[in-house]
């Protein structure tokens, strides 16, 4: 019973923080990138970069960490089997690997470059421009990887009958 409680709570929190993480990722890629380009053209982009971006990045990067930890708790004793792609954890294992790569991407390429863009880390204008491009591409890579990640997370067990993945 205790184990069920832990699994249930972990699954609930994994979904909650996963939605927060990927929701903000999709906000950055589907909304903010285009909005910021237009706002910058009108000279009002600072409203987004000063007031919205730091808050969004805070919840984004920490939601990523909590999502991963809750996923690891959820895998429990099968953690090793999933990450070594053992049957019947191959499908969820691929999802777990993609999620892990995305988490590393958040804390290395996206956040480290955004710190330069936001002025948290000192950088020249040239370095900021380079960091902005790298952060953008890293964010797009995560959006791209989120598509197979969600497929394998969702189909690993619950849709095994439909897709034959286990």
């Amino acid at each position, binding site marked *: 019973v205790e184990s069920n409680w832990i699994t249930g709570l972990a699954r609930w929190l994994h979904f909650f923080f996963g939605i927060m993480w990927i929701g903000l990722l999709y906000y950055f890629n589907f909304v903010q990138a285009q909005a910021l380009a237009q706002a910058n053209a009108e000279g009002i982009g600072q409203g987004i970069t000063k007031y919205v971006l730091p808050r969004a990045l805070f919840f984004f990067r920490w939601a990523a960490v909590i999502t991963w930890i809750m996923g690891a708790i959820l895998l429990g004793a099968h953690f090793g089997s999933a990450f070594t792609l053992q*049957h019947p954890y191959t499908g969820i294992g691929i999802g777990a690997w993609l999620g892990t790569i995305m988490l590393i991407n958040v804390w290395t390429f996206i956040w480290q470059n955004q710190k330069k863009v936001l002025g948290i880390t000192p950088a020249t204008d040239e370095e900021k421009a380079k960091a902005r491009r790298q952060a953008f591409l890293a964010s797009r*890579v995560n*959006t*791209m990887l989120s598509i197979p990640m969600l497929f394998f997370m969702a189909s690993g067990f619950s849709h095994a009958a439909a897709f034959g993945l286990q």
Partner: protein
Amino acid sequence: MVKHVLRHPVLFKGRIIGGVLVLKNPLDTLTGTIVCGLIITIVLYVIVKSIPVGA
């Protein structure tokens, strides 16, 4: 056919500059990003399905 694919407006937006084919990064567009994600999904699905049970 190859020429058509290389000039695909979503995936590549290739341009020949100085005799060199310069491809646009597909991640610069949302459509290109989603198409790449779907391609990776299919490739991984095929790989996972090809792994024999018990391997």
